[in-house]
């Protein structure tokens, strides 16, 4: 569904992406992982057409990305930080997005099968429909961003750090939702630093470092090669074997211990 061919991008002194080639297809849940500043978000922004790569091509459903914005109808995007106009009410945001996509008025949402309001219901966002955006906490805006990404039942979902800032309950709801969408055969791209969150979801691992793709394995291969069932340990082992800088992964493993409190 998404094919990336020799993408490179340079921001002044920083080589953000360095000749990346990959193909993601239906039914995959791809975890983009790598240290901070390894180019994950830049890659996502290239797919969304927000960043223009210096060279290389990206195809979504066999159509190359150029000026035409209509391919983005197939993509639901949840940004790392969602900030919205201060005085806009939560309900208005959803209304506006539906308006932009020419779908029906939200009052008739129930009959419109293009609208997926599972997350709106389960995060209980209707209760805050009348609240202005500036009054929302960080976690609540994250919930809104998640609901926006899933709203139009898109074939491709791109989630940038989806569980960061969510409380354990909301994070579980979101994971449930991702699993449901995975079963429907959608393509899901996730970046996250919390490897334990990815464990049960992911089918493929895309590991990046300093703008380069280091490996792109499916999870079974990874488990066979490393003999580890847990994602964090498997990746740690790969990296120790291949001598990547691995300070950050140890950090992840420590975080994981903390998480068991929940």
């Amino acid at each position, binding site marked *: 569904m998404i094919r990336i061919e020799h993408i490179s991008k340079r*921001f002044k002194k920083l080589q953000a992406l360095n000749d990346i080639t990959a193909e993601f297809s239906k039914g995959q849940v791809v975890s983009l992982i790598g240290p901070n500043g390894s180019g994950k978000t830049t890659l996502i*922004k290239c797919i*969304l*057409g*927000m*960043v*223009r790569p210096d060279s290389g091509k990206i195809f979504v459903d066999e159509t190359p990305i150029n*000026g035409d*914005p*209509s*391919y*983005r*109808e197939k*993509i639901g*995007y949840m*940004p790392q*930080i*969602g*900030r*919205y*106009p*201060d*005085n*806009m009410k939560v309900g*208005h945001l959803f209304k*506006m*997005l539906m*308006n*932009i*996509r020419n779908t029906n008025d939200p009052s008739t949402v129930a009959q419109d099968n293009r609208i997926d309001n599972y997350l709106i219901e389960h995060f209980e966002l209707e209760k805050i429909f009348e609240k*202005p955006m500036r009054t929302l906490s960080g976690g609540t805006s994250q919930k809104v961003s998640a609901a*926006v990404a899933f709203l139009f039942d898109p074939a491709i979902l791109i989630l940038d750090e989806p569980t960061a800032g969510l409380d354990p309950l909301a994070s579980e709801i979101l994971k449930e939702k991702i699993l449901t969408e995975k079963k429907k055969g959608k393509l899901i791209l996730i970046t996250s630093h919390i490897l334990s969150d990815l464990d049960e979801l992911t089918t493929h691992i895309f590991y990046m470092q300093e703008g380069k793709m280091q490996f792109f394995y499916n999870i079974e291969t990874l488990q066979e090669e490393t003999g580890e069932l847990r994602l964090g340990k498997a990746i740690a082992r790969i990296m120790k074997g291949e001598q990547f800088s691995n300070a950050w992964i140890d950090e992840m493993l420590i975080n994981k211990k903390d998480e068991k409190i929940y």
Partner: protein
Amino acid sequence: MMKLSRYVLYDILRSKIIIAYTLFLFIVSMSMFQMEENSSKAMLSLLNIVLIVLPLISLIFTTIHYYNSYEFIELMASQPMSRTRIILSEFAGVSLSLLCAFLIGVGIPIFLFAADATGFALLFTGSALTLVFTSLAFFASVRARDKARGIGAALLLWFYFALIYDGLILLLTFNLADYPLEKIILALVSLNPIDIGRIFVVLKMDISALMGVTSALYKDFFGSGTGILFTLGIMLLWIFIPLWLAVSKFKRKDL
């Protein structure tokens, strides 16, 4: 396109800054008309406020708004919407709300106390200047990635158009006073929207007769139909050229 700008407009009209700005303009204009016996004297004071404050507020408000809605613009860019549509909707939302503030704050007092040709000339100039400086501010903020730099550039633009440019013209006229400069000055004045707005309004006032031969020449020009069309044309150029530059930059920009 109106779909998005409707929500942008709705958001801005609710912000405290735009309400305070409207009130400020309203109170200032009302008190000008109340304090001065002669309404044309009040108009002159009001004109100076319009020419200095309006560009400044338009520039600063637009720049701050742009940087504050940066993440929102990013979200819009992830939707099936073209970049041109996003930036034009933002422009429409911001400029319409600033226009509303001006037309309510200054327009109502003018309708009440000075609903004549001068009054309408002032309203026209104010509206045009709001659009010109909103468009310039969009250009500055699309170009500068950093918020501080964007606001700095907007302030510099204001200093240049409101203060420095007039100083340069004065310097020129003093040094070359022996030569017939009327036409050249007219051309130079067109390069500054604030100046052309000022001349357009002042020449509609009675006091313009007191300003000598040059003013008589300008009065002939600006009083005629061509003069009005000329002013309108120059203002439109000042609105559309920066806006066009901003749009073409925004289309190629990495968000």
